[in-house]
């Protein structure tokens, strides 16, 4: 019999960090629909997962929509998590997959884009001095200026660790396209950063 003070709901009420062994019980409670356990999982992972969504979305409002849909999918598919790998990794994968589905639904989002075609999008008036904000926020803001295809391949390859074969499969493009989009995305981001740094 588990002591009441280790129960997930009790921990949630106290807003305490449970031990690693208790995570599985919180997950188990969430699977059966315990809303407080689900709330605890949300509160525990929302910041990290929102950071992920911000990288894939065009703006904050879209990122919140992705986070909302992603968490609903997490709770509905939670019974499929069998303890293989970390729970955070599994949840992150669900959130990323949801974001990819959203992106694929966007019309022409993954069209090949040349760097020349996006240079006009770098509006100088939109680029604040990099010293005025956190570097990650600056990076994020600049990434939002990139075409969705660029940003998605950049996210998947560099930040998620996908191979080009995986990216090709996920996005329904060829490996060659994935590689070329990555190179162009890096060139685009590099140009954006240099433009901000030289101001």
């Amino acid at each position, binding site marked *: 019999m588990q002591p009441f003070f280790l129960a997930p709901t009790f921990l949630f009420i106290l807003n305490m960090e449970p031990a690693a062994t208790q995570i599985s019980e919180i997950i188990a409670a969430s699977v059966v629909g315990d809303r407080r356990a689900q709330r605890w999982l949300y*509160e525990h992972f*929302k910041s990290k997962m929102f950071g992920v969504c911000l990288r894939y979305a065009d703006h904050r409002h879209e990122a919140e929509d992705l986070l909302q849909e992603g968490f609903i999918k997490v709770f509905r598919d939670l019974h499929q998590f069998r303890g293989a790998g970390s729970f955070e990794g599994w949840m992150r994968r669900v959130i990323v997959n949801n974001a990819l589905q959203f992106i694929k639904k966007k019309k022409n989002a993954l069209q090949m884009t040349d760097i020349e075609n996006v240079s006009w999008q770098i509006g100088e008036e939109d680029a604040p001095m990099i010293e005025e904000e956190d570097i990650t926020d600056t990076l994020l803001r600049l990434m939002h200026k990139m075409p969705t295809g660029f940003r998605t391949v950049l996210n998947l390859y*560099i930040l998620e660790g996908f191979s080009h074969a995986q990216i090709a499969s996920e996005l329904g493009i060829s490996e060659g396209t994935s590689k070329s989009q990555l190179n162009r995305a890096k060139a685009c981001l590099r140009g954006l950063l*240099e433009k901000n740094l030289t101001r």
Partner: protein
Amino acid sequence: MDENIQKDGLEDFLKKSFEDFERNPSDGLWDKIDAGLNAPAAPKIVQMHPGLTFKTWWIGLAAALFLGAFAWQYFYFQEKIEGLSEKVAQQNQRSKNDEINSIQPSDDLKSENQNAAVEPKSDAIQNNADSKNLTNGTLEIPIQNIESQQVENKNARQNLVENSFPKNESGQQKSKNQQQNLKENFTKNTHPNGVEPNVLNENQIEKLIENSNQNVAVETQPEAQNVFFPPENEEQKPIENQKQEDKSLKTNNLVALNLLPSLGFSKLDSPQEIFFSQLPMVKPLRQKSWTVGVHAAKLATRATAEFQPQRFPDPKDHGKRVAQDKAVSGNTVFAGVSLEKKLAKNWSFVSGFDFREANLTGMHKAEFEFRDRKNGGPGPGHDHEHDFNYNLNNGGGSATIEFRVDETDPTQHIDDDEKIEFEAKTQQKTQWISVPLAAKFSVGRGRWQFNLKGGVAANFLIFNDFTITDLSISNPKFKIEPQSSGQKMPDPLQKLTLDGLVSAGIEYRFNKTFSLVAEPMVMTNLMDYQNLDFAKINNFMYGMNLGFNYRF
């Protein structure tokens, strides 16, 4: 920071910048999630194979058209056959009546037959004399009896000859007229020999039946055609030689003609065959040319992936080496219906529909070095746990494998070049609708037939499932963590593939209609099963096909 964003450092700069990137969403977001969880879940649309709906639709349409055409032609011809059967029954009845009523000695037939072949009128008298010298002992009795009837029927015979060969016609014209008369007589199923029932008793008939079995093959067209209707452009042979040749023919022909209505037909199997054999043109006996059957086969299967070395391993995976043995093996079973059309004496075209399922398992090995572990690892507090991942591609499918290993001795130092070999067991299940198109050569005698078949099979993918069933590690310095997993990648299989097939088997015929077939067969892919542009899949199957056929 300028240094970080240089060409070679941009990726690391981004990774470090976003490593612990967290931002808080709006406060009210949980309420939206809570409301979304309370709402009934929308029906989940699982589209395992994009485009399958369309393919299923046209496969179904093709199957419906095929079966519809098959059913139509079957019932159409069945109806015709039934109609013909009735006619044949009526003709048989009429034939029996004619047999009783008609009186025409066999030597008349000989005469007419020989007249038809050579010189109709001039040889008729000679043939009358020859008829007494028939060497067939069995026939002597009826012939002697018949001789007594010859006098009585002389006038009738004379009338027949005169009607058949008017005196003012040339010999060639007479011959044609006689042939026409014979055709008409034969078409009407009248018996030119017209043996009366009281002339041949039952025992004599039985003897005739026995002899007829050794006599002219009435089922073979060429001989029958020569007997009744010799080619018009055939050279006229000298009379003496002609007579000698005709003697041998006469006996056979006489027996053939005498026995054909009453005995020869008894060797045939179906009324429609009798009918067709009685047509004026005396076509070959109609053979059963369509065969429909059911069959099932089990084939040992082995699929091997060959990767292009310049494309694998991925350059990003520096020290990673993936074993080249990419084979999966298992069984393929298929069952379905076959339709066969006989095109020539020994050749047939074979098609049909099969449901085909393959279950393949494989053991995939990948060799890493310790330096290939993912950056970052599981996180703080798990310093001795390490993550590895790679893409598995073998003959069965593709998957992303994620290994998490723990050091068995945390105090031990592990070099970056330490070798780690992972093993992943895979299981693949695929289902196809298969349409074979093959040519079949058959040869044999009696009930046994030898069949040789070769062709292609078009396969339409309807289901594919590829899973990782087991993960293990060979290096004792590490133990695999239960969190390791295999994640399936999107289905890379082709929706339409083509196989080549060859089989050599035997067929046992229970009767003219039903038969059992056993044929060892070999199949291999003519098209690549997977969409991977950096790998080629070779598929090889061998096994036994058993079938049950119905000919019509």
